[in-house]
């Protein structure tokens, strides 16, 4: 009886029609998935082809699918918020639920949408761009993916079991501490981010080694495609920033569960230290989600302007400078803490300096278009829209960086407008651009152009209509994270909500386009869909699991462009040799499933379950340590067969 009471009162989130709806739909969708898989006898296929795969291309695709799902979830959160904020006195959400929703919206969008989306694209593309057969550590790569997937699952579970965190994606203490915020909700945030963060760190290491050690012969660093460069630099930021988050989350977890006093009011703890650690990671984090997007735009603009990238070296060095500066600006997120004139002046200036290398990039993109012959396919449209929108976001960032003025902008919708302008125009446009650009390589057919353009215009116009008014809401004194608005802010909020609806339509058309193109698009017969320049276009479409039958020797920048000029391919019949490939493994999935159990135990402070799960994790590590499986060889015969089939359509 007591147990049932517990289930109804604390375990499951009850009393909200929205959440009942979510529960029912989760159960229905799960049943449907189980049914479909059983009916079509697909369980074995799922396990063999996806859950145990170590192929970077499949892992990349899984990342992207998960990220799209998270964009949907985060987007629905956004629409709920916009609904509540449209009119003064709205009673659609009460304050508690509104707070939970902006918290999950922010967290999901940044941690479980933006990063995995970009990491998915990196996974698929980077090994292809450098002429490698996989990443340096394929097993670790699978582990990273599953740690992200289970981390995201834990976080999303909070919605129906135990309640969602409600302290903002920044989770400032003492509000997020155990005293003021008891219960499992905040633990979901801590543990969900922790689990996926470990995977991100591993991804960073993986890509650094991949890019340093697995380049095709002749592919010098200064010949790398610019997207690979951006991945490399992003990975460095990841490796040096994520441990800070790991520690910060761990400290708050220990505070909440084991009674320490890092960020508490009692025991002389120091709540602001959390903010300090959070932003020490958090600022580099925003460049983690923008630099790969910069890389994508560079590839696309150069391809569709049909010109070499302007100022390749400056593009590389500017990213290096941004990466370096990104570690010395974090205090701009709490200028209002009162750290004094010297601190604020220093961090104001370092922050504004980032405008310089970023400006170099903007002008170089314009330079790339100069004397080009620009085609306006959908990927290019996203990239073009990025430039003016991002500049608006960037220059308002510089306005925020002026500490004395920031005392007025801080915690207002001016800030909300800034970060959506950079995150959406930068990261989200970048993801959409990259996905449509590389889509034919991944799936063997283009996305429909007409639908693509419709979704583009809805999304871009909606985006500006939604977020531009928010700058003025900031000037009008509207604070962020407020669940209800004053009458004088109504006009602008109505506008913003209309914009959000336009964006939602844009996104819906985008998703529909995936389905439509799957059904009706013409299949690609040629690997080089867009007349591309980098090596990923040199393989056939669909890409064989070993990527390249023969690895080409690289003679300069824009490797594939040169190969095309010299009539070379990645399949030179005489040179085919057996290819060594890593074996698939179920260990990453199982290990992270145990991690999931351990996390769930920790979140509910059921230490027994937590320990049991951890033992499972350790056991998997031991199994892995004793695993001497050295992979397998693909025979010359099989390679020739595969290539013959794949190249049938080409002459």
């Amino acid at each position, binding site marked *: 009886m007591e147990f049932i009471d517990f289930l109804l009162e604390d375990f499951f989130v009850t009393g909200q029609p929205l959440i009942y709806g979510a529960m029912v739909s989760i159960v229905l969708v799960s049943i449907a998935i189980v049914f479909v898989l059983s009916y079509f006898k697909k369980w074995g296929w799922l396990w063999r082809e996806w859950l145990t795969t170590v192929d970077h291309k499949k892992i990349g695709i899984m990342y992207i699918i998960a990220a799209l799902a998270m964009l949907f979830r985060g987007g629905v959160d956004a629409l709920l918020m916009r609904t509540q904020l449209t009119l003064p006195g709205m009673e659609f959400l009460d304050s508690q639920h509104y707070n939970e929703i902006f918290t999950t919206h922010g967290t999901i969008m940044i941690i479980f949408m933006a990063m995995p989306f970009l990491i998915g694209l990196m996974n698929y593309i980077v090994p292809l761009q450098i002429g490698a057969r996989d990443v340096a*550590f394929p097993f670790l790569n699978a582990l990273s993916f599953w740690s992200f997937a289970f981390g995201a699952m834990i976080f999303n579970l909070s919605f129906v079991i135990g309640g969602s965190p409600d302290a903002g994606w920044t989770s400032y203490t003492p509000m997020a501490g155990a005293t003021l915020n008891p219960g499992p909700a905040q633990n979901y945030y801590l543990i969900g981010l922790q689990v996926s963060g470990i995977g991100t760190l591993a991804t960073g290491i993986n890509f650094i080694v991949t890019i340093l050690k697995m380049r095709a012969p002749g592919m010098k660093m200064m010949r790398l495609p610019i997207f690979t460069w951006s991945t490399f630099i992003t990975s460095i930021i990841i*490796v040096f920033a994520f441990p800070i988050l790991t*520690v910060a989350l761990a*400290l708050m977890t220990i505070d909440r569960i084991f009674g*320490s006093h890092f960020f508490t009011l009692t*025991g002389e703890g*120091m709540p602001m230290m959390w903010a300090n650690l959070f932003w020490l990671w958090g600022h580099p984090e925003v460049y983690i989600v923008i630099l790969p997007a910069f890389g994508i735009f560079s590839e696309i603009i150069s391809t569709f302007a049909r010109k070499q990238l302007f100022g390749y070296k400056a593009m590389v060095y500017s990213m290096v400078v941004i990466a370096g500066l990104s570690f010395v600006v974090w205090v701009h997120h709490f200028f209002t803490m009162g750290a004094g004139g010297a601190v604020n002046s220093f961090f104001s200036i370092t922050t504004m300096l980032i405008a310089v290398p970023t400006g170099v990039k903007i002008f170089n993109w314009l330079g790339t278009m100069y004397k080009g012959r620009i085609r306006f396919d959908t990927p290019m449209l996203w990239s073009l829209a990025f430039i003016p929108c991002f500049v608006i976001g960037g220059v308002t960032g510089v306005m925020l960086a002026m500490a004395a003025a920031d005392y007025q902008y801080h915690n207002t919708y001016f800030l909300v407008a800034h970060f959506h302008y950079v995150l959406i125009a930068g990261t989200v446009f970048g993801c959409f651009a990259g996905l449509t650009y590389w889509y034919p390589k991944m799936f063997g057919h283009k996305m429909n152009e007409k639908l693509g353009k419709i979704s583009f215009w809805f999304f871009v116009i909606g985006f500006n209509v939604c977020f531009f008014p928010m700058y003025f809401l900031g000037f009008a004194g509207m604070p962020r994270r407020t669940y209800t608005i004053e009458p004088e802010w109504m006009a602008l909020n109505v506008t913003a909500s209309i914009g959000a609806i336009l964006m939602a339509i844009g996104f819906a058309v985008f998703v529909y386009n995936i389905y439509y193109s799957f059904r009706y698009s013409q299949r690609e017969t040629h690997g080089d869909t867009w007349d591309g320049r980098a090596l990923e276009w040199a393989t056939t479409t669909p890409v064989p699991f070993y990527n390249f039958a023969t690895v080409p020797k690289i003679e300069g920048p824009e490797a594939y462009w040169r190969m095309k000029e010299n009539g070379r391919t990645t399949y030179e019949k005489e040179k085919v040799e057996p290819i060594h490939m890593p074996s698939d493994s179920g260990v990453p999935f199982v290990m992270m499933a145990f991690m999931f159990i351990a996390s769930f135990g920790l979140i509910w402070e059921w230490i027994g379950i937590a320990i049991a799960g951890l033992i499972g994790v350790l056991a998997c590590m031991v199994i892995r340590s004793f695993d001497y499986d050295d992979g397998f060889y693909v025979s010359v015969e099989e390679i020739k067969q595969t290539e013959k089939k794949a190249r049938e359509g080409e002459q």
Partner: protein
Amino acid sequence: MSAHTDISTGPLEYRTQEGRMNILGFWIFLGAEVVLFSTLFATYAVLFGRTADAPVPADLFEMPMVLIMTFLLLTSSFTCGIAIHHMRRGSLKGLFVWLGITLALGLGFLGFEIYEFVHYAHEGASLPSSAFWSAFFVLTGTHGLHVLLGISWAVLILIQLRQRGLTPVTSRKVFIVGLYWHFLDVIWIFIFTSVYLIGMVV
């Protein structure tokens, strides 16, 4: 994986492409560990002096014990170096002996650390006592946990050495665990200096 450019000279652990990549990857991981520990150091430094009603560090820290712990780890780092040296000479026996000594020293260190923690707890300084003591226990405890992990990991590798002898793979593993062990010594030097010595001075 791409071209297996294997070589036939030089230390065994570097001979395969895989071995070289693993070692490089581990170095990069150590870079991340530097950041991880420096975050703990930063926290410790910021929370220094926030002892609330608990004892202050100068009253509890004792030089002899800290010195013993330091020498244990320093020596183990040295013996680990010798173990790797023997491995590179192709002496499995030498490797076993010296790595064994290393682990024994590591266990000794852990023993002292546990004793120290229990002792402090008796004196009224434990994790929940105050911000300062939280920072102290988490910083030193994280290091201790790493040592424990290093020992267990090395034991697993010793078993594999038994089973397979010195191969490019096993020697790579030994080398990497060796790097880990030395690295923990580096961290301890900073704990010794900025926690214990400074804690005794001020």
